[in-house]
């Protein structure tokens, strides 16, 4: 898919709309799921009261080894959200770790809603979240709206006036279902855990739509700091983010970056980096990588290891 010229595109939302909020669990604490769903249900309740929604449904996909929620917990959660006007709560146990990209694609298959709210499973949302995320979709050409993550904000830059930004985090963003479908959903063949959201946003932009950041739409994404006050990713997180970085550079026609990453990873004393480089080469040899796109680099941004200009770096 190549970038099309930015042209007038009618807004995705005109009157009342319908929404499906979906999240992929992976050993998520039931209490965290309950907090997340209560906040989301309240937001849906308020949006409905404002006449923005005629239908709202929640969907949970479970990638855990054993179900993260018991039947009773699911029943209680269903009752809780239905009391707040949510039409239904779906729960699917995937019986394997599908990762976020495939997990969201699977959940999306069952959707008939106009809009899909993609979330992490433990995200607690501000009461006005849904209304605030829908608002920009009433503007022509806006194709994806990203929430503000708290307590630690993402450092990527956005336009203070228009909200335009390079990509939207999959921790919480709203996409019209038709657009999600037309750009090919998440690229689950290429991405397992990381960069699937960057890739989706860049394809939304290649399709001629804007990706915007909505500062008033806050969500709480539970992050803790290590004793040194910094992030301390697990070995799996290091591996999947390194692998995703290689694939994203490949997909967006940056062989120079791929080479640079491979040299760095090969030289790293850390096993996850070395393994990511090996996996990439294996997939390359097997023809398991996506065909490069955005050959003239109109959308993708690779800036100092980030996929956007940064307001600050941690």
């Amino acid at each position, binding site marked *: 898919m190549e970038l099309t010229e930015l042209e007038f595109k009618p807004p995705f939302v005109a009157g009342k709309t319908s929404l499906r909020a979906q999240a992929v669990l992976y050993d998520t604490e039931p209490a965290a799921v309950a907090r997340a769903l209560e906040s989301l249900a309240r937001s849906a309740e*308020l949006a409905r009261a404002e006449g923005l929604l005629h239908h709202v449904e929640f969907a949970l996909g479970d990638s855990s080894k054993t179900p993260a929620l018991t039947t009773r917990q699911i029943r209680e959660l269903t009752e809780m959200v239905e009391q707040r006007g949510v039409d239904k709560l779906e729960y699917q146990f995937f019986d394997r770790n599908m990762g976020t990209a495939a997990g969201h694609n699977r959940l999306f298959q069952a959707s008939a809603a106009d809009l899909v709210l993609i979330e992490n499973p433990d995200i*607690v949302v501000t009461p*006005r979240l849904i209304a605030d995320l829908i608002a920009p979709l009433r503007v022509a050409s806006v194709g994806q709206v990203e929430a503000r993550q708290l307590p630690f904000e993402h450092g990527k830059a956005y336009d203070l006036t228009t909200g335009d930004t390079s990509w939207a985090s999959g921790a919480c963003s709203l996409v019209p279902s038709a657009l999600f479908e037309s750009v090919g959903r998440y690229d689950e063949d290429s991405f397992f855990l990381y960069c699937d959201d960057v890739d989706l946003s860049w394809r939304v932009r290649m399709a001629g739509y804007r990706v915007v950041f909505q500062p*008033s739409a806050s969500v709480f994404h539970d992050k*803790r*700091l290590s004793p040194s*006050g910094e992030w301390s990713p697990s070995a799996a997180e290091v591996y999947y983010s390194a692998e995703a970085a290689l694939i994203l550079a490949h997909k967006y026609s940056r062989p120079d970056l791929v080479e640079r990453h491979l040299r760095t990873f090969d030289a790293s004393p850390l096993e996850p980096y070395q393994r990511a480089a090996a996996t990439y080469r294996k997939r390359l040899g097997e023809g398991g990588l996506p065909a490069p796109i955005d050959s003239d680099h109109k959308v993708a941004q690779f800036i100092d290891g980030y996929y956007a200009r940064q307001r600050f770096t*941690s």
Partner: protein
Amino acid sequence: MSTTYQFNYTADGVYGRTVRLAAELAGNSGVVLDLGCGYGAIAEPLRDLGLTYVGADTDGDGIADLRKRGFESHVIDLARVSELLPRLREILAGRKLAAIAMLDVLEHVPHNLEILTALRELSAGDAAALLVSIPNVGHRDIAFKLLTGRWEYTETGLLDRTHIIHHTESLLHALMVSAGWRVVAVDDLPLEESDQHFPDDSIVLNARTQLSRFLRRVREESAPQAVVNQFVRAYLPAHARPMPIVADRSNPARPFLSVVVRTQGRRPATLRDALLCLAAQSCDDFEVLLIAHKVAPELRPVIERIVEDLPQSLRRRTRVTGVDHGNRTTPLNVAFAQARGVYISVLDDDDLVLGHWVETFKDLGTAHPGQVLRSVAVEQDIEEHVADDGALTYQTVSAPRRPYPREFDLYAHFTQNFTPQMCLAFPGALFRELGFHFDEELDTCEDWDMELRAVLTCGIATSPEYTAIYRRWRTGHASNTVHSQEIWEANHARITKRLNRQTHLFPPGTVDYIRWTTRHMRELEDELASLRDVVRPPPPPPPPPVPLRYKVADRLNLAIKRTPAHAVLKKLLGGKDGD
């Protein structure tokens, strides 16, 4: 009563104060019933007010003495509660009741509540005042002596050996309210040194000892009746409201934490985000006290809407209180007085907390109950920004920094505050039991002041966990920019001056700390002195020796000046020296 006392009337004593209250509340006609009247020390002054004094007691001597002085008096036994009301009505015989006096009586008789209830019924028709005097067993002299194991009965006074019930302010209040009396005037008798102030060489009583100075501060801050010798109060009939007379040993149901959120409503966006952080807490054992301080009328609905929008589980734990007076410290005192939590923490409406903020405090508080709790914050910069629709929002413009030490150093904190307030949780009992409150003279540094006072009283338990984000405004309104440097310095000086004046408890390890610091300072001074020696320029060379001939000439010259001839010559030359 089995004992009759004969005490003299003094204008500033209990009797004088009672008469003053009667003059204020009893009018100038009708009967004043003096129950347990003894020798009726207030009889004449009340008669002088135009009132009809009627004494009643079990003892014949006092009754007889009153009669001799021309006053009506009756024998009555207050212990026979069931007969009390008809007997008093019989004495009154339809006359208008102006007031009832019970001076130093209730502590001698059982069934206080029943007696007070009967008197309440008697007074209802005339709305007569009840004038009461009762010794205060909470006087600091008694409390301090009890610390050393002494509880010394005396023939008369605060611990009169015949007292049956020992009253404190709270017991008196509970009795009166339960019986249907409302306090309308207070003229308590203070005594810096009560009759229990003995022996003279007591360390705990002597105001000059460090121990006594510390105890006095604790007692005086805890409740205002530290030196009240006798409660002298006037009551009027009111609706009875049962209150527990006997303490309930069980702990009241409390949330673990009361979160006090101050807002002026100017930044709804940050307030929403602060509340979002609370909605996302991993431990929900907390309540939220949102204090809307001096909020402009047009912004009040905005705050109400923000709270109304919250998820139900948080909304039902959130209370909003408006405070329209005072400085930024005032809402803290209002909120802390309302707080029900075992612990209390303050979260301003522009700061954020991580998901385990409450959980970290709770873990600490469970392991170290009663101590001040501390975790750590990072710091981040934000800027105000006006959105297209005119709404005030903000942008985060820096990565988190780590300027605050993860360990708490009390001595370093005496120089400046290294702990943002949301990293502290104070025991609620500090405020409920010890009467702590924020210093409203301070419009900055009030948190630092409270932190030091609380830690010096309770000690501190710390967690190295980062649990909060203290946000600094690069642009826009913030307390660190709206107050001048002079105000910050003046408040700083006020806090340190007061702390320096007081006697404090320091934690174990302080002696070693002071020894180490002093030794270290001495070593540094020695080192500095030796460095000065190294860099000091050499001393100037000594002057060359004076040749012998000059020394001889000087001696001769001096000898000549001392001769009479030299004096004559000097005179002839007009005072000039003849050298």
